[in-house]
């Protein structure tokens, strides 16, 4: 893992702990971005890189668990590793249920933290990839004409050109032409490929 490809955020109010985390991460070649409060983190620009968040539970102002909720509400899906100096079971259960990757009690084993970071980054990379793909697909979808967009759900529902022609009130030949354009614009190599794209774009099927 190279530093430039990843981004590890640390939100921790205790300066020496913050610094210690930075030291540890640097010693394994990870560059950490440090924040003293949840608000600071929310206000900062976050690069579009696989990232993870090391988050203290007890923070001044917005607590770690509050921040987790805010992020989730804002549809920001960054993997979170909680660290706390005094955690209890209900607290950790709450955090894990809300999707945290790990919940570590200080002092923790460095390997535990590093493993959690690694897992988070891998998870986030997959997510970003997927997100990028969907964004690209969306771009292609946006380039379709309204007729072609109308056609797409009917095509992926498995209807024949004839059926589609009857449904939208045109000739079978026209449907064939539109369908060709659709495949080309979406850069689909096969019908199966188009199906996958439609599913990624969450295009609903129409039942026969």
């Amino acid at each position, binding site marked *: 893992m190279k530093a430039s490809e990843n981004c590890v955020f640390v939100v921790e109010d205790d300066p020496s*702990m913050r610094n210690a985390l930075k*030291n540890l991460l640097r*010693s394994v070649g990870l560059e950490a971005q440090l924040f003293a409060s949840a608000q600071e983190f929310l206000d900062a620009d976050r690069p579009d890189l696989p990232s993870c968040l090391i988050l203290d539970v007890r923070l001044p102002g917005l607590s770690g668990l509050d921040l987790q909720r805010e992020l989730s509400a804002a549809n920001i899906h960054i993997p979170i590793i909680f660290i706390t*100096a005094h955690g209890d079971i209900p607290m950790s259960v709450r955090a894990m249920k809300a999707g945290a990757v790990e919940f570590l009690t200080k002092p923790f084993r460095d390997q535990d933290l590093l493993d959690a970071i690694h897992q988070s980054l891998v998870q986030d990379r997959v997510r970003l990839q997927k997100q990028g793909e969907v964004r690209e697909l969306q771009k292609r979808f946006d380039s379709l004409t309204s007729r072609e967009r109308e056609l797409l759900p009917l095509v992926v529902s498995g209807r024949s050109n004839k059926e589609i022609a009857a449904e939208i009130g045109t000739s079978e030949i026209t449907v064939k032409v539109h369908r060709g354009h659709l495949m080309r614009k979406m850069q689909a190599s096969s019908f199966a490929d188009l199906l996958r794209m439609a599913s990624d774009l969450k295009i609903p099927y129409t039942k026969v």
Partner: protein
Amino acid sequence: MRSLLPKDSALPTEAGLLRYDQRLMRIPHSATFRYGIAVLFVGAALGLSLVIRAALPDGFLIFFLSAVMLTGWFGRTGAGLFAVILSMLIVDYYFIPPYRAFVVELDELPYFLSFLFSAVVTSWLGSARRSAEEKQTAHLDELFEQTPEAIMLVDLRDRVLRVNKEFTHIFGYTLEEMSKRRSTELIVPAQFRAEAASARERLANGQNLNVETVRARKDGSPVIVSEVAFPVVANGKVIAYYVIFRDITETKRAQEELQKAQSELAHLSRITTMGELAASIAHEINQPIGAIVTNGNAAVRWLAQQPPQLEEAGEALECIVRDANRAADVIGRIRSLLKKNPTPMVHLDINEIIREVLLLTAYETNRRHITVTAELANQLPAVLGDRVQLQQVILNLTMNSLDAMSTITKQDRHLRISSSQLSDRIMVVVDDSGLGLDPQYSSSMFDAFFTTKDDGIGMGLTISRSIIEAHGGRLWAEQGSRKGASLRFTLPIASVAE
């Protein structure tokens, strides 16, 4: 006619008479009885009058008037008037000339009429007196029956003479059922029989009684009662006694609930305070420790690199030193915080504190069937200290003792708290009859966080010892003289400590 006398009338008890009296008052007599009694009394008057006639020619007046009055009293108005008529006929026949004829000579008429008038008045007096008495008795009966407390009248042989409605309501027994057996056999649970016997003895000696005790209902369920009893005295002799019960089961239960809630609250607040304190200390200390461990790991990793990154490792080590100092500072701060609030030292009576603790733990000791003995020396000199802290120590030692006895049989659970003076110190000893000190733990029992209890936090004895030491005393544990553990502490007496 029903027999008026009780079956065991052979026993010349006054209570027997009392019962006779009561039956007489209460049984509504039949017409046969009432008119029969008129015939009986008037007949007797005739007999007596005839006997003394020679000596006292006008003596019949007294006897007939008496007969009429008695009939009026026993047989009421109707029978009384019947007796008047009967007397009138007989007197006319035997004692008013012409004799042996139901005729009255003219010059005897005033004499006869005055007799008649006296007889009517006497009869009325008798029956009026009776009905007044009956009215009064009816009032008393009404009061007896309607009183919202259970009342029982018992003779000296423990036979029940009367019970009221509330008695039947509380205990489930009617008078009929109660009068068949001794009252103690029915309503006193076996374990209270001895106590009840001694109470009866005191009543027989003319003393009153006011106790809270347990009685049994007909269905066997226990009922907690407040029992007031007092003797019925006739002619200077105790002939029976009244026992008044009030069912206080609910009140008692509510009281116990309250007490329990209070002691739970006290316990909880102690635990919470300790828990919060522990949590905040843990947080304060864990921060620097977390940083130390993380920096330490970083240093190890810098050194493991090829070539070793000495400068980076050095920086991490510097951080470690700084954080370790910080952790030490946190501990120092906590210590000085505790020292900063010197507790006000006042003159205290250690016995009073012990009594307070025993009161606080009364619910627990009761619940756990523990017998408590307090042997508190008289006139102990005062100690100088903080009331709440010393109370905490004694409470803590007591609760430990109670817990230590949880595994042994109920009969063998004894808690003994004593206080005594040893020259210039006062010693308090808390002995239990538990399993005693485990030699395996004897050295660590005063260590912080050392506990053998599932729900313990292991701070009780540690804190107790530091409190006692702060008071200039000593706290230690010994093996009890027989069995169990003996926790002891000494405190200097006030004049020495000053």
